[in-house]
């Protein structure tokens, strides 16, 4: 069986060699140059993207670090953690501008506001408009 196949295959090969010829190219030089160009193009390493993702990520991290460092240097009071008292109003000084008045100040019971208490202000009768 095997001998038969081999002889058969040898016959076929010789027949193909005799009768099958490569078709002739009309412009062989042109085709050749195109093939060479394509081979050359595929051989070159691909051009890197203008903004590779990794580069962009690193530049972002660097920018944030720079911003943090600059904030700490230029605005040190803003870089630290703020205490609750900074979000609550406070009377630094208060003085009455008339000898019959006295002024005191204290924090409101809700701990959010602050109160200035003026004592000794003249009573205003209801018939006097204050609007």
């Amino acid at each position: 069986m095997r001998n038969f196949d081999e002889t058969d295959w040898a016959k076929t090969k010789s027949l193909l060699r005799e009768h099958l010829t490569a078709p002739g190219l009309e412009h062989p030089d042109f085709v050749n140059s195109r093939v060479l160009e394509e081979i050359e193009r595929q051989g070159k390493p691909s051009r890197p993207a203008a903004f590779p993702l990794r580069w962009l990520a690193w530049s972002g991290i660097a920018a944030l670090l720079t911003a943090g460092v600059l904030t700490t240097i230029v605005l040190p009071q803003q870089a630290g953690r703020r205490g609750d008292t900074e979000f609550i109003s406070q009377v630094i000084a208060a003085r009455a501008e008339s000898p019959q008045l006295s002024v005191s100040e204290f924090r409101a019971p809700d701990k959010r506001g602050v109160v200035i208490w003026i004592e000794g202000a003249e009573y205003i009768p209801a018939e006097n408009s204050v609007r």
Partner: protein
Amino acid sequence: MSRCLTAAFLLLVLWAPGAHPAGDRIWSALVLATNEDPSTPIPEPLKKFAPVIEKVFGYNSLYLLGQKKRDLFYGSEQWLVPSKEFFFKVQCLSQGPTSYTLRIELYHDKNLLVTTEARLARDSPLYIRGPAWGKGQLIFLLEVR
């Protein structure tokens, strides 16, 4: 090209504004506080102040006699006139990340009653007990918003 973009990106990051309060305003109000039975409904702008006023000054009814709002920024000097009789001169001495330091002068007619220097933080009001009027008490409110 890529260098230009990097420079632009860095500039943008460095230029980005911080957590600075911008566009804040100072609100002032003249309130008449009285005791009534039953108490009258609290006007909407005074609702959040009513519990403190009741606790500190002891009044259950409030009337809004006047209110005024002005822009607040470093160096500004504003006249806040919540009523024709009482008004404030507010000078912004400094501006911090969370508050403003103000010099506040309270006038009755042309008479200066009180001068105060206060650091006002946003949504942290200043209550000023003014003179008694009729059957009630005048209370001044100042708040950064």
